[in-house]
């Protein structure tokens, strides 16, 4: 669909002009890197600490309100958003979330947030940190435009009709390039997760080192761009008013499997720790034919004790 160039010096002007139409979320460094509406700065020094997931599968979604005896359904509202600088692990993760919230289930709240989004990718030239292991995790193209960073310019690949329309509208910034994006442009080298039937190594003693360092703090699942679990809560504002909310949940805590009679299916930390990893790289594949995990490495980078489960798994012979 065509390749264009944008001089690096023009990037900020382009983003500023683009922001006039609707908010453009870019990675910004504060206490951590997160996607926020463009405000003059942008940070590619590392992968974003917070993935873009929270903008679609939101942390807290109000499903209904109650006011005395009255139930009021909350209709999801939707607004136009552009995301710039999304790396491929997160684009693929979004595709996986779409397959859950839009294909397998029709989730109106997700759909409302997801509608009207334009995704502009950023192709890593080198791994942003040492925890990445996306190589071999089956990353896919799922963006409207893809930016490849070069010394003095960006190569901009048009990958969808929406992307083409965007270029057309802001054509003055872009020059048509006489080039095709090749496999060499796309290639980046990260470490790899050794794929195999993980069921066969569930009981391997090598996992113990990881289990013992785990705090069951839920940072890994919260920061994971693919984790999609939630729970429903009724919250009282006053005695008569309140809301039913859906809130992110995590398989790392006992509450996740607690049922009537206070029975917990995964009482031991070991089983919770392994469940996350196994759901990401084994169970999900058994059900859906592809791995849920995209190899972004956030569950290691955000872990207070940096439990490198990929190294553990790779070492098991």
């Amino acid at each position, binding site marked *: 669909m065509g390749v264009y160039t944008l001089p690096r010096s023009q990037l900020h002007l382009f983003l500023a002009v683009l922001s006039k139409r609707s908010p453009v979320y870019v990675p910004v460094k504060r206490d951590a890197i997160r996607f926020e509406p463009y405000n003059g700065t942008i940070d590619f020094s590392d992968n974003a600490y917070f993935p873009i997931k929270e903008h679609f599968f939101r942390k807290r979604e109000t499903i209904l309100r109650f006011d005395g005896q009255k139930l009021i359904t909350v209709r999801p509202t939707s607004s136009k958003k552009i995301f710039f600088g999304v790396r491929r692990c997160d684009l693929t993760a979004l595709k996986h979330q779409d397959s859950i919230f839009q294909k397998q289930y029709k989730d109106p709240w997700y759909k409302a947030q997801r509608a009207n989004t334009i995704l502009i990718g950023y192709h890593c030239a080198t791994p942003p940190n040492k925890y990445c292991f996306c190589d071999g995790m089956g990353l896919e193209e799922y963006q409207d435009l893809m930016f490849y960073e070069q010394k003095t310019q960006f190569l901009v690949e048009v990958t969808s009709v929406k992307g083409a329309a965007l270029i057309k509208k802001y054509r003055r910034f872009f020059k048509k390039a006489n080039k095709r994006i090749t496999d060499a442009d796309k290639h980046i080298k990260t470490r790899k997760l050794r794929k195999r039937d993980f069921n066969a190594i569930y009981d391997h003693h090598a996992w113990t080192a990881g289990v013992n360092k785990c*705090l069951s703090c839920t940072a890994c699942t919260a920061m994971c761009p693919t984790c999609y679990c939630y729970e429903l809560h009724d919250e009282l504002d006053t005695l008569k008013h309140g809301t039913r909310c859906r809130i*992110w949940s995590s398989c790392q805590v*006992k509450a996740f499997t607690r049922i009537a009679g206070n029975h917990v299916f995964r009482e031991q930390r070991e089983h919770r720790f392994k469940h996350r990893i196994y759901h990401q790289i084994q169970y999900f594949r058994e059900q859906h034919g592809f791995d849920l995990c995209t190899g972004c490495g956030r569950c290691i980078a955000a872990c207070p004790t940096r439990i490198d489960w990929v190294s553990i798994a790779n070492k098991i012979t």
Partner: protein
Amino acid sequence: MTKLKVGFYGITGCAGCQLSVIFQEDDLLDLLELVEIRAWPFIKDVNDDETFDYVFMEGLVATNEDKERLLKIRKNTKILIALGACAHTGCVPAYRHFTLQKNYAHLLYEKNKNISDVQPSPIDSFVQVDYVIPGCPPSKQEIRTFLKTVVLGNIPKSYDNPVCTECKLHNNGCLLEVKKPCLGPITRGGCNAICINGGLECWGCRGPTDDANLPVMVTILRKQGHGLKFIKDRLVTFAGTKMPAVRKLVYDKNNKA
């Protein structure tokens, strides 16, 4: 429907937890209508402490009078709720378990010979506690939800995810990454990560989660460069009595954590 007979009591404490009940602002009158307040010495002159369905007990046992009152109330109520950190963990007053090994009551209370001092301890050291509403102070919302739940005849749910869960829901970066000694990973949440939202690390006022990984928490703090004394102080300030392993971890000189 007969109303639940409820009592609110305070033994040694700052009364802040009872204030959390009173400060339900717009809701207080509605709340009080749902139940029959048999006793609330803090705000009521006439109190009947004979039969209760639910008693909310604030404070810890620090005197013999506290103990007697607690034992008596326990006998007279079907359900006893530890309201707030003092009742739940002993909070700051129970710090004495970890510092003064001798009793200095004779110096502190030289002029008041009537003070009968006991080692300050949470109420579950003396009686069976049915529910805990943790926190210093407990959250107003939690108190409200608890009351409404029992009035409806349901079993209250306690929140036992760590503070980190709610911290992430509030969009915070992790304070451990900037070397602040945050106890969030081992502390029971439900507070909406209010301290971290305000930039302060978690001090553990709601007590440890039931599977707090204490050795790993200590390792994290040591890697941040904190000494054992600092770590001990932090861990025991609000909930030392609920972490029996602390003693071993922080007093054992050979500890390699």
